[in-house]
């Protein structure tokens, strides 16, 4: 029987590699949702994080307390921050038909739809790697990818997330991340 155990909960799944900031961006989006008065759960796929290995993280956001404690199997949103993973994992696995797929890639949403045979929902692509290198000079592409996800889902306000980032990284690092996030929002393609 198909039962919905996540009624009223928006569920995210993140893909990335150890060291790229999957856990951090997941927690930061969670804390932004919390700042807007939501209940949250933000947790990694439990394991020792190994630099470079594929890692996943999960986020639940709800207006009411969340009771379920398990991994997310049918996400509303999937975010993949590492373009090299797109040939390794299938980010659409379990994604709801009307779900949102957010990918860091230089390809278009149409190309990604074809690649993963994903017909429903929304596909959002953003070249976060280039944005990160242009603005920060280093491959910190988790924040720009997250910005595209925030923009596309509307679960949390962009300003709230940027405030969280500035709070966590005060000074220049925060400002650079903010600039990268803003550019990602401008350049993200939805298709």
């Amino acid at each position, binding site marked *: 029987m198909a*039962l919905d155990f996540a009624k009223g909960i928006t569920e995210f799944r993140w893909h990335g590699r150890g060291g790229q900031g999957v856990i951090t961006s997941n927690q930061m989006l969670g*804390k932004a949702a*919390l700042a807007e008065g939501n209940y949250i759960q933000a*947790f990694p796929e439990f394991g020792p994080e190994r630099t470079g290995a594929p890692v996943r993280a999960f986020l639940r956001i709800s207006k009411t307390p969340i009771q379920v404690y398990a991994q997310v199997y049918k996400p509303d949103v999937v975010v993949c921050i590492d373009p090299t993973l797109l040939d390794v994992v299938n980010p659409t696995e379990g994604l709801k038909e009307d779900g949102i797929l957010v990918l860091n890639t230089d390809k278009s949403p149409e190309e990604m739809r074809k690649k993963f045979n994903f017909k429903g929902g929304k596909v959002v692509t953003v070249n976060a790697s280039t944005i990160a290198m242009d603005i920060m000079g280093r491959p910190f592409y988790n924040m720009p990818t997250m910005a595209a996800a925030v923009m596309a889902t509307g679960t949390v306000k962009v300003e709230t997330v940027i405030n969280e980032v500035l709070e966590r990284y005060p000074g220049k690092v925060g400002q650079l991340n903010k600039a990268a996030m803003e550019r990602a929002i401008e350049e993200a393609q939805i298709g």
Partner: protein
Amino acid sequence: MTAVKRVPKDQITIEGLTGDAAIAHALKQCDLDVLAAYPITPQTIIVEDYQKFAANGEVHCRVIPVESEHSAMSACIGASAVGARVATASASAGLALMWEILYCAASMRMPIVFAVANRALSAPINIHNDWSDSYGARDSGFIQIYTQSCQEAYDTTIMAFKIAEDHKVLLPIMVCIDGFILSHNVERVEMLPTEAVENFLGVREPFIKLDPDNPITMGPLALTDYYFEFKEQQDKAMDAVPDVFAQVEAEFEKMTGRKYGMFEEYKTDDAEIIIFTHSTPGGTAKATVDVLREKGEKVGVLRLRMFRPFPTKEITEAVKNAKAVIVFEKCRSFGAPSNPLALELRTALYDLEKRPMVVDFVIGLGGRDCPPTTIVEGYEKTKEYLKKGRAPLYETLGVRK
């Protein structure tokens, strides 16, 4: 200590904290004198965060970075014996290495608060959650409370000191969270102002203490003459826990509006089948029951919090009218007819003339995920067993066979 008052909303801090961080923050506010611990995953953040507070001068506590867990619990006993308020944290192999000293802490009546991030035991090495570590210590004489959420972990840690230090109790207490599933999960936590926590707890008043000016010996030797009497007293202390626990919770509720009980009853009033579990599976079971109820199933959850002392009478009363009780537990007691949680329940129900059927599922060993579908599978199996009129003593669920 002045009378406990409701803390106004504007004095409450809301933060996103992992289970470990929530416990660390609670410890920060409990005015500890000594914390002695040795790092082990997944409780590491508790001690890491607390060390940061100590390094920043935010707490006035002696942190003793010992060379092993055996030493950690030994140092806790020494500090507690001179009258200090003491805490430690560990998991899995670390808890196992404390084994010998756990019994000393309880027998010497040291009110030590011990945060446990439940983790499987080796081999093979596994850092993930199950309950084999603290279930193994169930006869050590520690009070054991298992919590579901980061908020509950924070609240319970604070209450733990007041329960343990009460002169009717004077026993060490474990506050358990599920490793990774809660220890590394960021949730919304409402934190009290430190002043309110300090007022609630007061300063520990030792019943008796080591004092160079007035020397005594603690826990030396008692053979056939008096050992048994010590055990008799220890047993009585355990019996005193539920009353003290209720008083402490009532005061805590006055301050926060929150209370949890020795166990939580969820939609059990008219339930024909009751799910009996604790920690995070207790939450998942409630979410599952919500969905099953929509389909017309008469099912509820009894989420246990206090495993030691086991609330035998109260639980018997709560489940006696059900047709079946389904136990979900994350431990296999090898060679035993069933497993720790089900064994307690079956003992509690034995004297009833008409007993609910008890079905025991071992789940989630070594962190195997326990989604709602696992709960549904156990529920469907139980309905079959009810039809047949008999069930196996236990079975494993969610494993390749």
